[in-house]
């Protein structure tokens, strides 16, 4: 009797989970095991004993410090420009008429999704040596030439292509929180536009905009396709963590276990910013009720 009830409980438990098991298995194996493998690889030697040498050796190297600083600097710059340009743009788009807004959102959506290798070629076709804009600048007699594709500002320009539209799409829902009546009320109280934004608009939008900044920052730090496409195998290119990981595949650095250390560093950044993101949006959500 107890055995059959145990079996019934097992069958019931299996049935409770049955339809979700294939998904949990695939996602678990393909997402969790690689992360665990990177963590283990970053703190063991080749024969499997525990060590922290990989971390100290990696981060004592100037090139690795450079790569991390460059990555964080690039991500912060990209996210800040996305905020400064994207927030007003988002405000403007949120106040368009319905049809107009649908069209602009459509354009932004395409730009957001066009963020991979194709963007690398589009950069060359636009700002390369024979790019459309380069030719235009030369034609009108401008001496200045666009930043080289593997430089800091070249990368920033390419990253913004997808990240400014992404910032707009992320922050659009928050823009509808600012009620038209508040501006009218502020006007009735003789407030200027600047005062309205400083004392009403910015405090309400701040948590949402900062959360979106954080997302863009995190995603920019982990970008792979665009920098690999723009930098390729150029030896003197701007060092980035993801590009260093790519190079460790082919170079002699593989034995040093630098790649797992970089991978775990990026994971840590992702987890930290996800937690921070939750905290920030929670503080903003009280305006939603």
């Amino acid at each position, binding site marked *: 009797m107890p055995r059959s009830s145990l079996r019934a409980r097992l069958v019931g438990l299996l049935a409770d*989970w*049955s339809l*979700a098991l*294939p*998904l*949990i298995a*695939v*996602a*678990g*194996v*393909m*997402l969790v*095991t*690689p*992360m*665990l*493998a*990177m963590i283990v690889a970053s703190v063991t030697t080749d024969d499997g004993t525990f060590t922290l040498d990989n971390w100290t050796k990696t981060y004592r190297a100037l090139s690795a410090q450079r790569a991390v600083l460059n990555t964080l600097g690039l991500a912060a710059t990209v996210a800040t420009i996305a905020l400064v340009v994207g927030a*007003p743009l988002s405000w*403007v788009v949120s*106040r*368009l*008429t319905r049809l107009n807004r649908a069209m*602009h959102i*459509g*354009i932004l*959506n*395409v730009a*957001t*999704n*066009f963020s*991979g*290798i*194709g963007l690398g*070629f589009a*950069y*060359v*076709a636009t700002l390369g040596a*024979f790019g*459309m*804009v380069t030719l235009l600048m030369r034609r009108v007699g401008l001496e200045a030439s666009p930043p080289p594709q593997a430089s800091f500002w070249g990368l920033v320009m390419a990253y913004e292509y997808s990240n*400014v*539209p*992404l910032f707009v799409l*992320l922050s*659009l829902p928050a823009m*509808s929180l600012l009620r*038209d009546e508040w501006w009218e009320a502020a006007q009735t109280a003789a407030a200027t536009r600047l005062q309205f934004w400083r004392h009403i608009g910015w405090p309400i939008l701040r948590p949402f905009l900062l959360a979106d900044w954080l997302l863009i920052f995190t995603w920019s*730090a*982990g970008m792979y*396709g665009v920098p*690999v496409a723009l930098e390729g195998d150029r030896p003197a290119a701007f060092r980035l963590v*993801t590009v260093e*990981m*790519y190079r460790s595949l082919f170079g002699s650095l593989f034995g040093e276990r630098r790649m*797992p250390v970089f*991978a775990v560093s*990026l*994971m840590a950044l*992702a987890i930290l910013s996800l937690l921070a993101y939750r905290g920030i949006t929670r503080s903003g959500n009280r305006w939603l009720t």
Partner: protein
Amino acid sequence: MADLTSQAFAAVEAPLAPSRRLGRWRAAMPRGGLFAALLLAAAVLYILVPMLAVLLYSVATRWTANILPDGYTLAHWADGFADARFRTVLGRSLGLAVATAVLDILLVAPACYWQRVRNPRIRPILELLAAIPFAVPIAVIAFGLLQVSGQIVPALQGTPWLLLPAHMAVAFSFVYWSIDASMAAAGVVGLTEAARTCGAGLGATIFRVIVPNVGPGLASGAILAFGVSFNEIALVQILAGDRFETVPLYTLNLLKSTDADFNVLAVMTAVSFAITLLLSAGVVFLNRSVVDKRRAKA
């Protein structure tokens, strides 16, 4: 991650003021007009000029000195589609993306359904798993999978059989959010109870009641998964490499080579632009119909 935009889109569509009120708002802020128009125009230019440049490159005869090409031809398009490598790459990418989308729907839809009608304890696990590809860079997952598969199943490296489940795993978050939202909107718990009360079995309930009601969610989830797989480069490059060249990898290889035909590269980029455009239009269209339906109900 970029495909999160469809969620943003669905969210923003709902709380809109009627345009009559917007007109009044505009009248109240006259100085916003010029600045707003300039900002919008600049953003649209920034987005459209590179697309235009790619398109012109794909039909240009020679283009080295003037703002526009010296002449136009369709020869590059003909060359591209006559090239066996070009066709193989395009077909392979389309096949991989379709397989990812179909299998992801088959995996995710039952799990979403089960967590709503049978076992809510499934939800926290799926939400945690879905947050991984959203936050952790795909390159990190790719390098991790390279290491794991190298120890356990090295024979799978360079084949699509490792790449396909990897693409399914990194694309599943978007499918999950899309299907879960549409199941919430359709009220699958109530539908299931009604169907069971009428004597329908599990199979009949799922295929004759649930699936027709969450159609747009399934479709937009499939489109998002297709887009992730079609544009993905890190997993393709690291796990499969040149033995399984897809559209992004082909583009990257041509970009790096010194004697590549940039006009054909432009054709390939234009094709993937067009596919991305169609997918985005599809997602926007599907989400709008969901929102409209919800609004009509309310």
